[in-house]
């Protein structure tokens, strides 16, 4: 048996760090196969997700690309794009980087090859399920959490498998200290688990249909706590872990400041979890929660920039390498994009800025600086470094990789600049008034005005995607030229079972060696933020003043609402009128918290490609909706909304209606006892009334398709005509906030 050698070059003369001399050297190997598979999946899903992204971008310039089919309409393909790039491209990218770096940082092979395989194939199964179900219209209607309940359960199982595999590796490690990247991985694991479970609490109605457990304001708070922290703990913390591993690794220089990384870690996970409400500024969310979101978002600037500076300054004295090494170029631009996006984020959280930017393309630009710059470029940099290394060869073409870098950078600029422009233009046009106090621009004017910007953005997408395809070719050639090292031999001294401390130990140093305790601490830290925002919003009645005239949806309206959710209308239309003159003048009375108490799920939306719909009820006649849904340009010339001809053929599925009523009753919607038994009769009665009205107004000439009360369009019209009309009944608002 060999005993350990003297301390390695970088090991200081410190008894706490130096491996115990009596420990035997162990031989083991790193598993590169899982890393390779995750790398391949990252590339394949990246191309698919970005191609769908380009397609949905082009939809806004050429609405014909919606193809007139249900599964290819924007409301379904846009969630496909977001899910594919977030969970398939970045998700696989995370696992690729974690599986590579964790083994090396722990000096141990992944805990179980079987779990690695299960994790890989389980994750791909989830993605395939998403690719099939989202276009088919199976959605829970919550952004970035669209997947229905059976897939939610599968996600939970696969995530737990990942967790066991990761913790197993950490527990059997040969390195006492947990490097900061591992902290980020642990925080990612625990927080994503909490976010996913809390946001996915839903009541199943059928195999692929469920209702969110929460309603209205509460659902919005939970959803954006989830949505924001999906950005934080899926797109940011794991990638920061990768940054902390790969930048020093590639540059062959230690992290600039380990002190800063400790503060970076705790401050980031502590602050991020609170910031969700900044997605809901000026909405019906209670003011105190909005303010809390703003304050924490502003504070986030400090750790985010601390992290960015730490990443960039790691290259101090090595900037000459950046000129030569394309991997470093990608990494530097990634970290810079992170810095820009995390500066912009807090600025967008200021209420005055948010009032301008929210619901516009500005947010789309902001998101893509992060997605294309930070996540995309970091992933590409890692791929260019990993693949040649695992295949023991040189990169096929350095020139091509450089070309990818430049075309990708140009792609980001061509994407972001037109979208910023579009965002400003949109907001200014929405808010413009004539001298006589009337609104200057119709909504449609603002839409048609943006077409050139949308076209330029698509060009940005083409450039970026071209770069990715060039990378794929380059990496395929590299793979073919090399020979894959499936098991990388390594050796390290075993870890002493009993750790001897030297003198008094600080509490933080204690935690740095203990993964389980670190997990629990991280969990507590993130739960505090969630709990303090949730508990009062959920339980203190004064937060959501009830409105006596707000009644549950009729069964037909409920069916119509489900179709609205299925078609992804929320991807373009908000249902939230903010208390601005420019909005109340255009859309009507601003939205009240009490109006959404029966909305499972809420459908406030986050982007207005089309106008707000909260007060659409009664604004137009039934026949207007009928024509508009069949061919939007027939009522609104220049509209880019997709047509929905299938609603005029598909029949309303009344077989599930009673179950839906029962589910709603379980959720606390006050339908009378036994209403599920007569709900269908009520629905059919209302459908007949709408059909009769349509026949009267349209006459035989105006009929586009055979008119039947059973067609889905009738339910959609019922829902649209109901929306936002309850408070017009003029029942007094019960102000429960007043002191007794």
């Amino acid at each position, binding site marked *: 048996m060999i005993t350990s050698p003297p301390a390695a070059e970088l090991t200081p003369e410190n008894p706490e760090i130096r491996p115990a001399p009596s420990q035997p050297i162990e031989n083991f190997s790193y598993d590169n196969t899982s890393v390779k598979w995750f790398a391949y999946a990252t590339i394949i899903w990246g191309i698919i997700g970005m191609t769908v992204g380009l397609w949905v971008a082009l939809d806004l310039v050429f609405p014909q690309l919606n193809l007139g089919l249900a599964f290819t309409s924007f409301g379904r393909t846009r969630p496909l794009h977001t899910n594919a790039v977030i969970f398939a491209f970045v998700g696989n990218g995370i696992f690729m980087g974690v599986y590579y770096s964790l083994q090396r940082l722990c000096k141990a092979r992944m805990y179980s090859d079987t779990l690695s395989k299960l994790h890989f194939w389980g994750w791909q199964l989830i993605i395939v399920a998403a690719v099939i179900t989202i276009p088919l219209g199976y959605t829970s209607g919550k952004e970035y959490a669209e997947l229905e309940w059976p897939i939610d359960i599968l996600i939970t199982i696969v995530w737990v498998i990942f967790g066991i595999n990761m913790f197993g590796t950490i527990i059997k490690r040969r390195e006492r200290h947990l490097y900061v990247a591992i902290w980020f991985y642990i925080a990612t694991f625990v927080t994503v688990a909490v976010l996913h479970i809390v946001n996915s609490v839903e009541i199943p109605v059928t195999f692929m249909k469920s209702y969110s457990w929460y309603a209205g304001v509460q659902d919005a708070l939970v959803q954006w706590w989830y949505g924001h922290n999906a950005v934080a703990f899926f797109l940011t913390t794991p990638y920061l872990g990768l940054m902390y591993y790969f930048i020093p690794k590639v540059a062959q220089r230690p*992290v600039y400041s380990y002190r800063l990384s400790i503060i970076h870690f705790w401050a980031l996970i502590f602050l991020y979890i609170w910031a969700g409400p900044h997605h809901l500024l000026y909405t019906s969310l209670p003011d105190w929660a909005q*303010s809390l979101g703003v304050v924490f978002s502003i504070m986030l600037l400090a750790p985010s920039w601390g992290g960015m500076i730490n990443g960039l300054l790691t290259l101090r004295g090595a900037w000459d390498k950046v000129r030569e090494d394309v991997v470093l170029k990608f990494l530097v631009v990634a970290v810079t994009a992170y810095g820009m996006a995390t500066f912009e984020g807090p600025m967008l959280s200021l209420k005055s800025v948010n009032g301008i930017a929210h619901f516009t393309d500005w947010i789309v630009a902001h998101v893509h600086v992060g997605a294309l710059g930070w996540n995309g470029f970091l992933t590409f940099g890692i791929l*260019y470094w990993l693949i040649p290394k695992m295949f023991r060869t040189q990169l096929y073409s350095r020139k091509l990789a450089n070309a990818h870098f430049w075309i990708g950078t140009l792609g980001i600029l061509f994407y972001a600049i037109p979208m910023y422009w579009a965002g400003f233009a949109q907001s200014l046009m929405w808010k413009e008034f004539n001298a006589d106090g009337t609104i200057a621009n119709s909504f449609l004017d603002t839409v048609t005005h943006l077409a050139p910007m949308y076209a330029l953005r698509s060009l940005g997408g083409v450039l970026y995607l071209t770069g990715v395809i060039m990378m794929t070719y380059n990496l395929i050639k590299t793979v073919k030229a090399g020979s894959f090292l499936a098991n990388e031999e390594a050796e390290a001294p075993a870890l002493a079972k009993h750790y001897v401390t030297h003198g008094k130990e600080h509490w933080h140093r204690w935690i740095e060696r203990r993964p389980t305790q670190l997990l629990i601490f991280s969990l507590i830290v993130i739960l505090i933020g969630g709990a303090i925002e949730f508990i009062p919003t959920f339980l203190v009645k004064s937060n959501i003043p009830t409105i006596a005239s707000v009644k549950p949806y009729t069964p037909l309206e409920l069916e119509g609402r489900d179709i609205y959710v299925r078609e992804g209308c929320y991807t373009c239309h908000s249902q939230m009128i903010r208390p601005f003159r420019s909005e109340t003048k255009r859309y009507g009375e601003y939205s009240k918290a009490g109006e959404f108490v029966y909305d499972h799920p809420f459908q406030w939306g986050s982007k207005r490609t089309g106008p707000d719909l909260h007060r659409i009820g009664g604004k137009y006649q039934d026949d207007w909706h009928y024509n508009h849904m069949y061919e939007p340009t027939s009522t609104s010339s220049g509209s880019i909304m997709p047509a929905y001809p299938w609603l005029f053929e598909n029949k309303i599925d009344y077989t599930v209606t009673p179950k839906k009523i029962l589910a709603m009753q379980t959720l606390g919607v006050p339908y009378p006892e036994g209403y599920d038994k007569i709900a269908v009769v009520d629905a059919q009665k209302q459908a007949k009334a709408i059909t009769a009205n349509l026949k009267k107004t349209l006459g035989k000439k105006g009929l586009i398709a055979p008119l039947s009360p059973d067609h889905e369009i009738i339910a959609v019209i019922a829902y649209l005509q109901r929306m936002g009309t309850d408070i017009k009944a003029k029942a007094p608002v019960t102000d429960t906030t007043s002191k007794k």
Partner: protein
Amino acid sequence: MKFINYLTSITGIGIFPLISLLVFFVFFVLLGFYIMKADKVRLNYLAAMPVEKNEKDQNKTTGINN
């Protein structure tokens, strides 16, 4: 009486942001102390962990630098 009754009767939620701020403040003051006092040699060791060369099969190139 169920626990939820106590939660629903929370009054003066204005105190919540203050509590949050206090929790935040105390945690980071403690962390700040730790950071100041932490052993520099040890931090340098940790900072260099990704760079450490401990793999048997040391491929010196990054594949594209040379």
